[in-house]
């Protein structure tokens, strides 16, 4: 049966295209005016739909297409409730009536009546049996022959052959259909039901309602939907609602009825009940109407007009949606661009550029108020010139700027909706004036959580025009997004500032830690020196004392010299311990106002002979009017002496070195600084770092005991001063010793006379 196979495939392909089935002209004529009524009458529409197989199928499919679960769409009522009225009316406006020739050629009205009668019988049986909801049974009955409807309306000429075969009694319906189409209406119906997404029980009904023995898998419970529809179908056909004129009813209705728990008599009663009631429903469905072509044409034209209107309004909606889509895209792009902005300026520039390019602003001046409210940072951008200016504007102490609420927030939300700017943003017009061009100007606030962070001041169009509501809406959206970005940028800046501050605090902590470590070292050194003094000086006293005794008794001069060396070295050790203790615990300074310049000159005079012997000249110079300092003059002189001696030592290693001692008045810091500079070989970083450590000698080992600079350091500290050392290999060494200037007591400012 290659031909049958081909035919079947043709049918399948045809069915694959089918979204809706046409309905009867009479039904169209009846339903379309209901749909076009203004306002539409849902109740009337429902009455029409629920008695028509194609309209019911259409409604069911619409509900399922809208995403409602098929299992819930088991009655027309459920489907109608699930579908919005406008969607339903739009769908119904597009129903097309079948051609009148087709109508008669394939006996469509008969089929429709059969569907309606079956549905009614189903409802009655379901009410009696109680196993299936009556409305579900009704729907199943109405749709059970949807495959036959499809074949008849889609391929009327082929179906005419089926009917012809039935009339000649050569085959029953299904056989005839298979002969002509290669497939019967039960299979076709199931295919449609499947493709349209109908619930499984409905598919079974459509597929299996002709089967005497229903496969267990599809039968469901006793008294299931399919059996119920099968009985209703038989009853309808027995009572004159067959789907073709020449039908024989071969089956025993009573048997089928019994399977549902009904007697033959009851079944017969139901059949008669349906037969008597059907005319009522048929009228309601418009089955009795046979409209004239003119009449139908008029109604269809009306529907067409309405469809046109629907299309136009849909187009306009679509247009608006497109505009909104563009706006959304713009905002998305802006958002993405702003996400990469990490500074207020970057945010402002991005907002300005986007606003000018995409929203048609002629001038855009977005500005942000600094978090402390002291100044405004802004950007001026024009459509022609891009970013023209980035400016900071001081607003501290002025009330020209609209107050920016920091805390508490404003009692009502700050709106981003643009308002006229000339009054609220007066400062900007004063500042930019002619650069802004002509108005009208508007300001859209950039706000987050009811706090205004800034605004976008702008004019729109060239020449500028009054803002339309759509433009206002667009700019408000941009300002809203910009506000969030601004807030984020400011938070980021605050975070950076905070982390910088933290780093600073960290540095201070480290310095303090270092200092405390140093102080602890000094403290433990002091303790150590104290113990050492006792532990070492006692043995030294014995060594020295015995040596003295021996020396006194010794006649030999050479031996006496040797003993004297022992005595001297014991003294030297004792001195070292004394110095160490002095470093660890310097004696309390006796402070008094001192003339720093005079002190420096006197010191230089004292040390010059030493310098001369090392061939190192010592120069001294002092600023005019150096204020006095309040220090222990002896301690400070000793400390500076150590530093100068150190410098002389350093220079004596190089040829032609000089040492300079300067006294500077640092007016700004209210302090006095001694600067000792030498042009000796300098120190490498390791030596420089340890220059103030006791016993660390940067020069040849054993040259000095290495307590000179450390003692100077301690003495300067004890006198309230500060000492720094700067040196690099080959670059000489500079030591700066700074003391605060003496602040005489306020009532008698002349008291702090310098000590000469």
């Amino acid at each position, binding site marked *: 049966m290659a031909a049958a196979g081909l035919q079947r495939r043709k049918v399948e392909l045809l069915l694959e295209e089918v979204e809706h089935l046409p309905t009867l002209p009479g039904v169209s004529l009846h339903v379309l005016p209901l749909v076009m009524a203004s306002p539409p009458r849902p109740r009337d529409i429902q009455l029409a739909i629920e008695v028509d197989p194609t309209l019911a199928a259409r409604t069911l499919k619409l509900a399922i297409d809208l995403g409602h679960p098929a299992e819930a769409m088991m009655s027309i009522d459920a489907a109608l409730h699930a579908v919005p009225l406008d969607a339903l009316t739009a769908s119904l406006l597009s129903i097309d009536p079948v051609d009148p020739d087709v109508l008669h050629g394939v006996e469509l009205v008969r089929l429709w009546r059969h569907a309606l009668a079956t549905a009614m019988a189903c409802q009655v049986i379901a009410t009696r049996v109680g196993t299936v909801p009556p409305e579900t049974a009704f729907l199943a009955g109405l749709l059970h022959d949807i495959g036959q409807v499809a074949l008849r309306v889609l391929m009327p000429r082929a179906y005419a052959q089926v009917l012809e075969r039935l009339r000649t009694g050569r085959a029953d319906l299904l056989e005839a259909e298979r002969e002509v189409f290669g497939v019967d209406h039960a299979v076709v119906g199931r295919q449609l039901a499947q493709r349209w997404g109908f619930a499984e029980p409905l598919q079974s009904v459509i597929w299996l309602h002709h089967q005497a023995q229903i496969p267990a898998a599809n039968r469901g419970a006793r008294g299931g939907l399919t059996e119920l529809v099968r009985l209703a179908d038989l009853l309808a056909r027995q009572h004159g609602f067959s789907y073709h004129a020449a039908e024989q009813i071969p089956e025993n209705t009573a048997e089928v009825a019994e399977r549902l728990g009904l007697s033959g008599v009851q079944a017969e009663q139901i059949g008669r009940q349906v037969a008597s009631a059907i005319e009522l429903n048929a009228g309601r469905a418009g089955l009795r109407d046979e409209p004239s072509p003119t009449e139908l044409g008029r109604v269809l034209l009306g529907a067409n007009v309405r469809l046109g209107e629907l299309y136009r309004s849909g187009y306009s909606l679509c247009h608006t949606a497109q505009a909104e889509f563009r706006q959304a895209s713009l905002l998305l792009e802006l958002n993405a661009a702003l996400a990469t902005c990490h500074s207020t300026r970057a945010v402002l520039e991005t907002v300005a550029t986007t606003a000018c390019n995409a929203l048609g602003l002629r001038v855009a001046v977005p500005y942000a108020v600094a978090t402390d409210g002291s100044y405004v940072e802004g950007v001026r951008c024009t459509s022609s010139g891009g970013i023209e200016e980035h400016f900071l504007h001081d607003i501290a102490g002025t009330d020209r700027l609209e107050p920016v609420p920091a805390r508490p927030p404003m009692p009502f939300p700050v709106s981003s909706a643009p308002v006229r700017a000339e009054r609220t943003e007066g400062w900007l017009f004063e500042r930019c004036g002619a650069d802004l061009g002509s108005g009208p100007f508007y300001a859209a606030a950039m706000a987050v959580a009811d706090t205004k962070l800034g605004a976008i001041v702008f004019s729109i169009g060239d020449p500028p025009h009054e803002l339309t509501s759509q433009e206002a809406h667009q700019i408000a959206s941009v300002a809203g997004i910009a506000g969030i970005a601004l807030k984020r940028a400011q938070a980021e800046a605050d975070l950076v500032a905070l982390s910088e501050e933290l780093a600073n605090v960290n540095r201070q902590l480290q310095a303090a830690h270092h200092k405390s470590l140093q102080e602890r070292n000094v403290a433990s050194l002091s303790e150590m020196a104290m113990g050492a003094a006792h532990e070492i*000086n006692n043995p*030294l*006293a014995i060594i020295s004392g015995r040596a*003295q005794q021996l020396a*006194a008794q010794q006649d030999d001069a050479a031996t006496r010299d040797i003993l004297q060396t022992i005595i001297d070295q014991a003294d030297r050790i*004792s001195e070292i311990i*004394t110095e160490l*203790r*002095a470093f660890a615990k310097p004696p309390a300074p006796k402070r008094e106002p001192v003339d720093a310049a005079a002190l420096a000159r006197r010191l230089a005079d004292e040390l010059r002979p030493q310098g001369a012997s090392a061939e190192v000249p010592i120069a001294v110079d002092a600023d005019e009017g150096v204020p006095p300092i309040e220090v222990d003059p002896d301690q400070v002189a000793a400390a500076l002496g150590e530093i100068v001696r150190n410098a002389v030592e350093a220079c004596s290693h190089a040829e032609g070195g000089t040492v300079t001692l300067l006294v500077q008045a640092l007016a700004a810091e209210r302090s006095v600084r001694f600067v000792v500079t030498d042009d000796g070989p300098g120190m490498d970083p390791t030596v420089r770092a340890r220059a103030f450590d006791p016993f660390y000698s940067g020069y040849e080992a054993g040259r000095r005991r290495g307590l000179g600079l450390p003692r100077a350091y301690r003495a300067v500290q004890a006198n309230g001063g500060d000492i720094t050392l700067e040196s690099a290999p080959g670059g000489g060494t500079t030591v700066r010793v700074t003391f605060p200037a003496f602040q005489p007591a306020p009532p008698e400012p002349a008291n702090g006379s310098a000590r000469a």
Partner: protein
Amino acid sequence: MKEVYSTGEAAKICRVSQQTIIRCFDSGKLEGFYVPGSRFRRIPRDTLIRFMKENGIPLTNLDSDKKKVLVVDDEAEIVTLLVDVLERDGRFEVKTATCGYDAGLLTQQFRPDVIVLDYMLPDINANVVCKTIRGNPSLEDTKIILISAHIEEEEGPDEAHQLGADAFLHKPFRIDELVVKIADLLKL
């Protein structure tokens, strides 16, 4: 060391009455001289010693003429050194203590003219010893020389003065200087 004695001193040393000494002087048994231009009798040390030996009088009391020095230091070698130095000098009778408690006890018994006192002692420090001694009027004339290994030379004299000591020496010291300081204090 005293080279010349009065009759009263000689009587004390010999444990006899002054009249006996005067009689012996006048009878020529005890040789001596008059202070020029006066009637004060004076007896040189060597004639006194000869007189005492001739008459079987013990010389013990003559020795007590030495100045008594108490050396206080917990460092044994220091004590040994100081004892050595002071005894060699011959003018001093020396006793020693190694702690503050012994120092106090010996001060009561021995009645030293000078105490050479180390500051840092194992039990009580020199400041307490000084305070105790200075609190006792009968020890008013007792001189104290403070020695220390850890008080610096610049601060020492002030510190010593505050404690009621009469002189200060920083360890290590010159032994000559110690002897000179003792002699100075005792006006030897």
